[in-house]
């Protein structure tokens, strides 16, 4: 009876969010007096999977079926269900990603489990009952949810849990086959198109984000955002009005009906701070607001602020970051 964690891999590497998931699962396993086993999905290498020992994982199950490199809901669900049965896992932990939520919701039905998504803390364990804190109302609140099913599935929000790094520990990688058939690949992608990311930092995985609003006045000024993001190693994002008028692609839209981010640092440039935007960012650890309007509501939600013209302030910030070395 181990805890099963689902680790998503991309281009051979375990995603940062999955290192957090592995650490979460290992801590739950420790609390339950058992071990944590991982099952890998996506394009993985055995060497990188073995390193999950640093996050407290003892064993990794890996199906080297080439069609599992891309996300397929049907096949991933069957693979993880088979791993859960093999390990007799009562607790399954995955990332609160598009993949994790798609698979987790099917698994909940298949395994008759209680599911909580968007979870931000380790569970409080009371006998067979878990209570988990999860984000609700699009970042405007939290809910403590009781999972009373015999099996529990927890989808962990990115950047909520610190990844463990116990140097030198390695996990045993074991080949595993879920006996997948063609029918399990009904929703296999015909084509996968990855975004061309400035600086290569994906917004959902980023721990620093530089975001622009209408105060940037036009898409031609976005180099100011990109320069600061590049200097900081941050991803770029935008507010809803900006993606609505196509200055920036919709996948950069952060807010209530866009994506919710919780980076360590969120720098908002020329964004007034409508309640719908705040909902998408208010679980960021540190919020910086740059706006020429001292009355902008965003300042009330900020840790640091500069009342000033973004066109003057941004180059100064980029310069200062470069000088830090």
């Amino acid at each position, binding site marked *: 009876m181990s805890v099963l964690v689902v680790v998503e891999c991309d281009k051979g590497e375990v995603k940062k969010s999955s290192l957090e998931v592995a650490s979460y699962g290992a801590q739950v396993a420790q609390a339950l007096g058992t071990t944590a086993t991982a099952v890998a999905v996506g394009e993985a290498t055995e060497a990188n999977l073995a390193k999950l020992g640093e996050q407290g994982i003892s064993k990794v199950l890996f199906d080297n079926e080439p069609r599992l490199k891309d996300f397929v809901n049907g096949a991933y669900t069957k693979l993880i269900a088979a791993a859960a049965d093999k390990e007799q896992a009562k607790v399954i932990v995955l990332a609160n990603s598009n993949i994790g939520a798609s698979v987790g919701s099917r698994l909940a039905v298949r395994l008759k489990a209680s599911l909580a998504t968007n979870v931000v803390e380790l569970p409080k364990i009371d006998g067979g009952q878990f209570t988990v804190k999860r984000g609700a109302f699009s970042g405007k609140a939290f809910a403590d949810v009781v999972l009373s099913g015999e099996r529990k599935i927890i989808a962990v929000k990115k950047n909520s849990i610190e990844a463990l790094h116990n140097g030198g520990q390695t996990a045993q990688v074991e080949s595993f086959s879920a006996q997948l058939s063609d029918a399990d690949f009904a929703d*296999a992608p015909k084509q996968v198109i990855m975004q061309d990311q400035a600086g290569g930092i994906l917004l959902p995985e980023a721990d620093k984000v530089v975001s622009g609003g209408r105060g940037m006045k036009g898409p031609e000024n976005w180099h100011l955002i990109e320069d600061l993001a590049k200097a900081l190693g941050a991803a770029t994002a935008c507010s809803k009005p900006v993606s609505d008028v196509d200055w920036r692609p919709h996948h950069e839209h952060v807010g209530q009906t866009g994506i919710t981010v919780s980076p360590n640092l969120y720098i908002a440039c020329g964004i007034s701070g409508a309640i719908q935007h705040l909902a998408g960012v208010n679980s960021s650890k540190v919020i910086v607001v740059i706006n020429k309007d001292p009355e902008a509501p965003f300042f009330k939600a900020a840790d640091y602020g500069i009342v000033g013209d973004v066109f003057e302030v941004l180059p100064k910030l980029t310069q*200062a970051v470069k000088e830090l070395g």
Partner: protein
Amino acid sequence: MKFLVCISNVPDTTTKITFTPDNKEFNKAGVQFVINPWDEYALTRAIELKEAQGSGTVTVLNVGEADTEPNIRKALAIGADDAIRVNAAPKDAWFVAQQIAHYAKEGGYDVILMGKESIDYNGFQVHGMVGELLGIPTVAPAMKLDMSGNTATLEREIEGGKEIVEVNTPFVASCQQPMCEPRIPNMRGIMTARTKPLKVVEPVGEGAATAVAEYALPPKKQGVKLIPAEQAGELIKLLRNEAKVI
């Protein structure tokens, strides 16, 4: 082709969230409820596809008590043909998914659409549960949906990109932008919506699989530390030495 669009009734996006004194329930007092913004993509796209096909029906389904009917009527005014209201408070995703799966099966729908998630509970779970209960594929979250005969071509968002996926009916998709430009009701739609069929049915299946013990609001910020614009570089030093985030 028969489309089923599942809508939920949620607090307007500008709502300041508060809870009842025991923190066990959302405080509905004075709150304006709207159709979940993500569900509007599903609704409008279903209507567009039906129009393009020149035949078929769009049915909206809501799990909710009588107070959700104004928003069901709004969906009818936008262009749905008829509606089903499952007469129960939506306890959790599992409870709602069982209702949708049951009535979807009963009605023999080809395409089941809903928003990516509701903006109140943000579960992002119902789509997968319905697909699993019915044993059909789920594509979530879908940014684009086109139909050709019984085959749908969808764009599924994945972290950092998208997948082009083809599935045959029946299937479930959870929708998000930029799938379409959500429609708003026109006067003619509002008039005709009054007489469109709205069937009220009773809930089926098991109860909820989860329960909320308590709600809480995020901790308040300490207050903003302002740095003069001329000394903008100081901010970077504070972020490194004080906040320790860079």
